[in-house]
């Protein structure tokens, strides 16, 4: 199947200028690829830098060297070198990111939080909200909550809104950071089904999952990130 993501020799370190310039190396020579319809799970202990890899792919973090190529026929873009406007365009239609914690604007209703990526890429507001509503329904977020801002929701409810937001568009590359961490068994199963269905539709998925059952249910390949760790 077509290669969607190519990560080659990516290295990342943080330079803490406020701490006298101390350098914290994180990753060295990270290399892997993901094909359409494939789910790759990044494995490794906490704090090793798995989330950093996802953030570099999304463009939230810089990388020191290396190549992060995203294929979106007929183009291919290297996130590591691309100008901001290309990355913005990719985020609208190609790459979706479900972060570990929902970081939503305090006063926006859950339905609008979930619908936003569709609206940003050009869908009419009403159609986007309908799609978001059906996703929220699938994820068992009750209707009475959809008009409320998620700030007061439980961790699990917030995460489900976050997932809806990540899945509302038909982005061919999905980055999932602990999508089921705060969910009960029923909702975990629903998310697993959502992920697998996306895979069947050709999405490429890179996920961080600690729960072994979920991992087994979605992963086509496991990548042990410890091999790339740069920490001393």
């Amino acid at each position, binding site marked *: 199947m077509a290669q969607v993501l190519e990560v080659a020799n990516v290295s990342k370190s*943080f330079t803490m*200028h406020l701490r006298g310039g101390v350098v914290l190396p994180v990753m060295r020579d990270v290399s892997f690829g993901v094909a359409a319809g494939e789910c790759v799970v990044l494995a490794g202990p906490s704090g090793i830098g798995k989330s950093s890899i996802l953030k570099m792919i999304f463009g939230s973090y810089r990388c020191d060297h290396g190549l992060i190529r995203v294929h979106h026929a007929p183009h291919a873009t290297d996130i590591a070198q691309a100008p901001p*406007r290309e990355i913005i365009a990719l985020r609208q239609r190609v790459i979706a990111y479900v972060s570990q914690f929902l970081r939503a604007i305090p006063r926006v209703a859950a339905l609008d939080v979930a619908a936003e990526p569709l609206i940003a890429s050009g*869908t*009419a507001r009403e*159609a986007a909200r309908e*799609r978001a509503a*059906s996703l929220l329904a699938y994820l068992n977020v009750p209707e009475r909550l959809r008009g409320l801002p998620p700030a007061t929701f439980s961790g699990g409810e917030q995460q489900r809104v976050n997932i809806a937001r990540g899945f509302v568009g038909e982005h061919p590359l999905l980055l999932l950071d602990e999508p089921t961490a705060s969910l009960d068994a029923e909702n975990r199963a629903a998310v697993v089904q959502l992920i697998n269905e996306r895979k069947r539709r050709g999405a490429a998925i890179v996920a961080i999952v600690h729960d072994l059952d979920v991992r087994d249910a979605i992963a086509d390949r496991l990548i042990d990130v410890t091999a790339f760790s740069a920490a001393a």
Partner: protein
Amino acid sequence: MLDAHVIESAGADAAVLADQPLLISEGLTKWYGRQLGCRDVSFELYAGEVLAIVGESGSGKSTLLQMLAGQMAITAGRVLYRMRDGATRDLATLTEAERRFLFRTDWGYVQQDATLGLRMGVSAGGNVGERLMAVGWRHYGKIRHEAESWLDRVEIDSARIDESPRSFSGGMRQRLQIARNLVTAPRLVLMDEPTGGLDVSVQARLLDLLRRLVQDLSLAAVVVTHDLAVARLLSQRIMVMKGGRVIEQGLTDQVLDDPQEPYTQLLVSSVVPV
């Protein structure tokens, strides 16, 4: 099991980033005698993009905005703008008439102090309608109707259309100023500390409104602010300035989550999380 939905695109401009930049700043520099205002600022802004310019007092961000808006003479560099007819013009080559017309129609400028951006002696409706009348609208009923719908859009009770902004709160005045600027469907809006001086809850409401308007109208905007939260909320791109120079620029979330320069790291770490 979910059905595969087919989503019809509304054809909104947000989905289509134009091929040509809308606004280009080339090496903009301002010297006040021997005092540096800002130096060598270059960027390109495309339709639908919001660029935040952040910095502390004296960073040069306001100087930059005023030069972009043609309100301050440029020492060196150029500002180029793609007009509605598609031609990209150096603003310095426009006649004064052309420039003033541009600023009344295709551009908006939201001042920090709303009293400077409004006619305080004129009713809210008159304030919103002025730009329309300036471009030739001559039907009172239509002007009023348009003003009413804009007041609704910025969440001002349209029953207050005949009141003077003197009776409005700070947040309402700012929203009125926004309506006044957006009524001629400008493609570019410059904002100078749009939430400055407002109460926190009022700021929040204003920011939500701005976000929605920018998105719905596919506006390009340059927002000058000292508040990183405003930058994170409104912009996709950010430029950090200090002492008249650009320290760092790029994607907003990237610069704020993974700041590279010492000053940027200092700025980001100085914000107390709530």
